[in-house]
């Protein structure tokens, strides 16, 4: 009886396992990432490039709304548009005319701003080679289970992207940086979006695995801006990112939309340029990649049936005053402008530095000539 039961159970388990295999197969092809990062870069300076800052901030807003926290976002804005003196509504950056959506918001943390947005800093953030005193908020602390979203916008050309009107990054440099990231196991999967003129040229040279790239225009085409606002006086957003924002506003953290929907954003009729994408380096099928794999965040949820008591306050243990009874000296505030003390101040002792450079060379020359003329053995007679 028992063996019969065992046999039945065994067969049912085998069948269940068969189903399980399919499930596990499906699970194998889903993303195995445990954390999400985003690097959002705006590379243009000056007031008339307002739209590039608005582009970056709208992606920032979507990414934050879908769950990636500020500590996992590296936001680089090359110029300040919100508090620019030309902005008729300070502390706001709008994405739509009639000032409907303020993408700047009230809770924004910019990690690299102004002159700090350079090609060198961008590549250092990607590869992780930063000076030791760099704070955590400026670092990309990703590991081999991280999905990273990289968004670049600005002015670009065939094979390069211009940073702040003074330098540029080429597609070869970018591809090499991604290869460095792959070899250092700094990403699990990477989604690269670029919204510039001739943006497709920037992903032509990629050769590292697990990269998916989207661009707003092909080589030889210009990406166009969406619409100007007469009150602010400049174009507010670029077309591709405008329709991308519209698409992302419909995504919520539990959404099942996948990358094929993202490829359809902004067809030629709306964008005037032809958006392109590249998926040959990506191991999974784009149809099985969720939008929230890159734009949202993985949340670890542990369900517990225990009850945790939070009502009682934590008892503060009374600290024994360590040295308080011993010290009885009176402290006092310092005089802010002690005139007599200042007038009679002795010149401060400068730290002695050994002589450097020119003086050292001069003395060495004098000593050499001296010893040359007089010779060492004659010095006995002098001294």
């Amino acid at each position: 009886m028992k063996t019969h039961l065992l046999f039945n159970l065994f067969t049912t388990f085998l069948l269940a396992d068969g189903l399980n295999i399919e499930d596990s197969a499906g699970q194998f092809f889903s993303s195995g990432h445990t954390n999400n990062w985003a690097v959002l870069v705006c590379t243009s300076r000056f007031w008339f490039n307002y739209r590039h800052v608005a582009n970056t901030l709208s992606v920032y807003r979507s990414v934050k709304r879908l769950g990636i926290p500020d500590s996992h976002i590296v936001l680089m804005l090359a110029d300040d548009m919100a508090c620019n003196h030309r902005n008729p509504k300070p502390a706001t950056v709008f994405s739509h005319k009639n000032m409907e959506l303020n993408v700047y918001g009230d809770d924004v943390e910019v990690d690299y701003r102004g002159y700090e947005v350079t090609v060198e800093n961008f590549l250092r953030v990607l590869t992780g080679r930063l000076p030791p005193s760099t704070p955590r908020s400026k670092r990309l602390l990703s590991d081999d289970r991280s999905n990273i979203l990289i968004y670049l916008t600005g002015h670009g050309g065939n094979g390069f992207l211009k940073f702040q009107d003074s330098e540029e990054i080429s597609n070869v440099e970018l591809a090499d940086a991604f290869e460095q990231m792959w070899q250092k196991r700094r990403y699990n999967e990477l989604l690269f979006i670029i919204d510039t003129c001739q943006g497709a040229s920037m992903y032509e040279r990629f050769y590292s695995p697990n990269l998916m790239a989207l661009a707003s225009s092909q080589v030889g085409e210009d990406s166009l801006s969406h619409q100007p606002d007469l009150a602010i006086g400049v174009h507010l957003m670029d077309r591709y990112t405008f329709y991308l924002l519209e698409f992302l506003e419909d995504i919520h953290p539990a959404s099942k939309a996948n990358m094929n929907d993202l490829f359809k954003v902004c067809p030629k009729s709306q964008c005037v340029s032809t958006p392109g994408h590249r998926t040959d380096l990506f191991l999974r099928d784009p149809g099985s990649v969720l939008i929230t794999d890159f734009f949202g965040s993985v949340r670890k949820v542990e369900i517990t049936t225990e009850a945790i008591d939070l009502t009682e306050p934590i008892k503060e243990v009374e600290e024994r005053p360590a040295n308080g009874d011993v010290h009885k000296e009176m402290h006092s505030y310092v005089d802010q402008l002690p005139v007599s003390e200042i007038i009679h101040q002795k010149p401060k002792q400068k730290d002695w530095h050994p002589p450097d450079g020119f003086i050292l060379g001069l003395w060495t020359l004098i000593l050499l000539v001296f010893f040359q003329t007089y010779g060492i053995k004659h010095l006995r007679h002098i001294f």
Partner: protein
Amino acid sequence: MAAYRCSSPVWLFILCSFSVFIIAGSEETPVAQEQHANVPDNPQTAAETAEQTEKETGGAEERRWEGTEVRDAATQKQAEPVVLQSTPRPKDDFQEELVVRPLHSGDIYASFQFRTLWETDFMRGNKVSHYRLFPKSLGQVISKFSVRELHISFTQGYWRTMQWGQPYLPSPPGAELWVWFQDSVTDVDATWKELTNVLSGIFCASLNFIDSTNTVQPSASFKPLGIGNVTDHRFLRYATLPREIVCTENLTPWKKLLPCGSKAGLAVLLKSEKLFHSSFHSQAVHIRPVCQDWQCKTTSWELRQTLNVVFDLHNSGQGKREWSLFKMFSRTLTEACPLASSSKIYIDITDNPEGEHFELSPATSLLSQAMVLGDRRTFSVYDLTQQDTFGSVRSLNLLIRWKSTEGDMLRPLLHAERYVAGYGLQTGEIHTLMYNNHPYRSFPVLLLDSVPWYLRLYIHTLTVTSKGKDNKPSYIHYQPSKDRVRPHLLEMLVQLPPNSVTEVTVQFERALLKWTEYTPDPNHGFYVGSSVISSLVPSTVAMDTNSTQERPLFSSFFPCKEESSYFVRVYTEPLLVNLPTPDFSMPYNVICLTCTVVAVGYGSLYNLLTRSFQIEEPSPGLAKRIANVIRKMRGVPPL
């Protein structure tokens, strides 16, 4: 792939073992429950043993993981209310206040101050780990970098002293950071560099641009504002970034340092859209050790977060002169911060004793007088910790409505201006003017000037004149600059005669920078930081030297040692100078031109010399070609 292939037999094994469990009986669920129950048992027993050992040894009360002790207490003392347990006196205290001062030009000045006092010891390597009201990020900065005092401010706009009077807390445009380190620090410069990097991450500002080219070590200004008896200026560093922009990304981390965040209390008024739409906005963080009581035997650490803002009358819409909390901040107040021991609003009504100039509603009976900025001012006080302040609508919206526009302002006693004179891009002259508006008293001022190295000052042309005559400073400290290493530092103690203008002029020459040292927008110009003028100005009323009485926060920032004068710090405007800027398109132009010249000139010469000429028959016409083909077929020589 390999991992997957291995996992299927593992799954089978797990399923088999699972089935064994099912067959074995219904012991599974109790097993799980036992496992769950084991977990709380262990720490409970651990806590019990810990308590026993404590009782046995009667040893030092270290901080343990209090969570288990609480659970232990909950199981042992079952229905005991919390109040009966003796709560120790809290060691930290939080106060918030807002001072509103209507200005004569129609604008309104609002100053927020949030102060956290904490009785703890960061010095001497003491490890602090339990933070309550004091923000942990700043506490760790203080302990790690052995900071004794830290003052950092971010300002947008320039304070117009002649129209607005003196501010409660002065600050220069841009970012300013000055720090006193403790005497246990061996390498002050390296610590300073690391500190600026860490602060740039905390406040989302580009403070990492502070390096040796814009840091100075003042020798007499910027004495510590906290208690202490060591004033060796080797431990002081001062730097300013006049170009630094202040925007919501600096306000966000600043608000997160407050105990209540921006959710309750006065901080709900801090909305960036209104705060940055103003003539002047300054937010600062000041950390210093202060006296705890009148005996001043123990020190506690004070963290002050201040925000000063001046709203423009004409900027905000309607022309009529009427200000309210809603108009200024687009919010009203509904409650005080629950963690605050005091939460007050002060409205300056000194110029309105009988209510003839403006009317304040809702009316309040609380009045307070304070000695601030050398004058006795009267304030109407709203105490937010009292429920009846909010009235029946449960929200407080102060309204100040003007009836007449008379009255003029007392001229501020000390005022300064600075500008660049000269023409061209080679030389120039810096003029600093200091005004002493007191009718009969003269007082000394300490002028601190820090000029970047690319403006080469000629100190032999330095002149100080008052009322046309030469005024020799009683103390001059000058540290010359070193190219790309140090800026100029000039400190002078000048006695300002009564009712006069003192002018300090110095000539300079502009340097040519290397082409990689220019910013991406070099035609904007280069900024020179503000001059700092520190002075003890004679006051009209006796100042309060008792430092421990309950005083409003805005009057107790600068320590007062004598009654007849008060300390004031005035900042001048920053200067914007144009350096000779090269044309950055020239390298491209030169390459194009050179390549063209080489290609055309040398290339054609080379071709002439090395080309060999061959004679070639021109290709024949179509008819001839057909004829040639026919001739070839016939075997006849072609034409």
